[in-house]
């Protein structure tokens, strides 16, 4: 059995890397990281396993948080409530889980399954259904694969537990679960539909926790050595540099529970005289260079602090910040016709055909 015991240093790197893969959304992993530091100080520890080592009839829980990132920094999630979300699902399906998994590697949910894993003494599978962060529950490889959209459990720290038992598709699950979450106060701990080992092996996006740790390690090493952290990421990941500049405008509005808006960046260095505009719905969705679409979902658009190399989120980016924009390649499954239906530009309401920055 090929398992790796994660050190707290690995988890520090995971937090930095998951924030990069969050592509502007997913919530800052800082608070889940603080929970992990506390759990490790208490002597807990987490094992990372590979999907290939799952037995076909193993049962895997997706454990994470749902809701508005701004609520999550006031009502901070804790490992006990997240564990209750997983236990509530076990009670509902009358089966025990054998492993946990991230519901999205990008942002705070890249770290959260470790919080429950530490308390439940279960391994975390090195896979997830997004390979990044996305704003909606049906924007996953598992939904593209047509896996069961239910049940899903939602738990609030005050003793509220809900199960969405049956819906015809993932979009309905998202709508109903979102309503429950809003009643809770727009934050909930959740367990996504249980998956068998066979399903994860076929439909999971693999190696994403390891990838986030690798990116985070790269950034942290560059910071220690006072090197260019963005260049360091591009040296280890097959990404491309899109833009470098200074934030000149951020327009945000909250609609339908999402943070939508436009970011404007004025070019610096070799990009002087050029303007980039990036539309966001929690995550960076489409980047335009001088008005022409340059990069779009499902390509990962990552806005990084030009000095530290750390990710900058759509809810905290501010005027005057020096940022560098890079693109990272998307998971293969999102490039299929069915995949683009779920996460391509049209899924976000853009009348654009997907053109990858990696295809030219």
């Amino acid at each position, binding site marked *: 059995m090929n398992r790796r015991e994660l050190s707290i240093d690995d988890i520090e790197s995971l937090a930095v890397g998951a924030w990069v893969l969050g592509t502007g959304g997913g919530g800052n992993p800082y*608070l889940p990281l*603080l*929970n992990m530091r*506390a759990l490790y100080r208490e002597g807990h520890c987490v094992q990372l396993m590979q999907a290939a080592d799952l037995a076909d009839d193993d049962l895997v829980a997706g454990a994470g948080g749902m809701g*508005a990132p*701004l*609520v999550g*920094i*006031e*009502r*901070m999630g*804790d*490992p*006990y409530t997240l564990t209750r979300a997983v236990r509530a699902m076990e009670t509902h399906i009358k089966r025990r889980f054998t492993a946990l998994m991230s519901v999205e590697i990008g942002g705070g949910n890249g770290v959260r399954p470790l919080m429950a894993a530490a308390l439940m003494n279960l391994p975390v599978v090195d896979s997830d259904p997004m390979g990044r962060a996305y704003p909606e529950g049906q924007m996953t490889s598992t939904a593209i694969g047509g896996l069961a959209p239910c049940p899903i459990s939602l738990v609030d*720290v*005050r003793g509220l537990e809900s199960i969405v038992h049956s819906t015809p598709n993932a979009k309905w699950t998202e709508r109903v679960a979102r309503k429950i979450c809003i009643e809770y*106060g*727009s934050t909930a701990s959740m367990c996504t539909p249980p998956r068998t080992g066979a399903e994860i092996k076929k439909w999971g996006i693999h190696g994403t926790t390891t990838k986030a740790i690798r990116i985070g390690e790269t950034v942290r090493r560059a910071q220690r050595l006072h090197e260019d952290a963005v260049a360091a990421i591009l040296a280890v990941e097959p990404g491309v540099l899109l833009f470098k500049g200074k934030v000149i405008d951020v327009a945000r509005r909250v609609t339908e529970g999402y943070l939508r808006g436009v970011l404007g960046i004025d070019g610096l260095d070799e990009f002087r005289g050029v303007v980039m505009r990036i539309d966001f719905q929690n995550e960076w969705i489409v980047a335009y260079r001088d008005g022409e679409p340059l990069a779009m979902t499902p390509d990962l658009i990552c806005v990084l602090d030009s000095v530290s190399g750390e990710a900058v989120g759509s809810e905290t980016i501010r005027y005057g910040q020096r940022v560098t924009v890079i693109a990272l390649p998307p998971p293969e499954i999102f490039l299929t016709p069915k995949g683009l239906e779920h996460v391509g530009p049209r899924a976000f309401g853009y009348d654009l055909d997907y053109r990858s920055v990696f295809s030219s």
Partner: protein
Amino acid sequence: MRRIGIDVGGTNTDAVLIEEGKVAGAVKAPTSEDVTTGILDSLKALGATGVLKAKKIDGVMIGTTHFINAVVQRRHLTKVAALRLGMPASASLPPFCDWPEDLAELVRGGVWMVEGGHEYDGRPFMPLDEAAVTRAAREMKAAGLKSVGISSIFSPLDPGHERRAAELLAKELPDAAITCSSDLGRIGLLERENAGLLNAALADLARDTIAAFENAIQESGIAAPGAPRPPCRRSG
């Protein structure tokens, strides 16, 4: 408008007289270990230039790194009682949880977490547990704590629970310095709470420093109207 501005730097204490927005006089004096002697020297030096002669001064503004230095050097810090309103949420990340351990050791006088706080949409997250706040106040008193930092979930949107808890604390601890996080910070519980706890940790130093500043201004013979209250402005 005629005001004196004093900037206490690491090396020099600068004093300037500003009349109708223009610099009318400027001097330097070495910054002293106790800060106030340097301020007094700079005021005397400014007086010696003759620019102040027979003029009414509207105010004296002092900018100082005195407080940040106290935190950096871990000196003159007050033990603080942390009261957070928001249980049962966030219990795994209590006040002081992301402080450097040595600073937390110096400042953490005790942590109390009780039910209370609000939702983002204005509903109460939990009703404020007033009995628990009063119990906490008695325990703080028994522990000899005189400075309290109060935080509450979404208090920038509704500071009601923090204000009510401050009233309840004041009944039991009439001499305590009480800081409400909603007066200092914005959304982000830990960050705002940390700002409040730091402010509370500087309570004694602030009182002593302000008294010393007032003495220095009086001794200098400048006729400044009673320093406006609160005399401090925190930015950054």
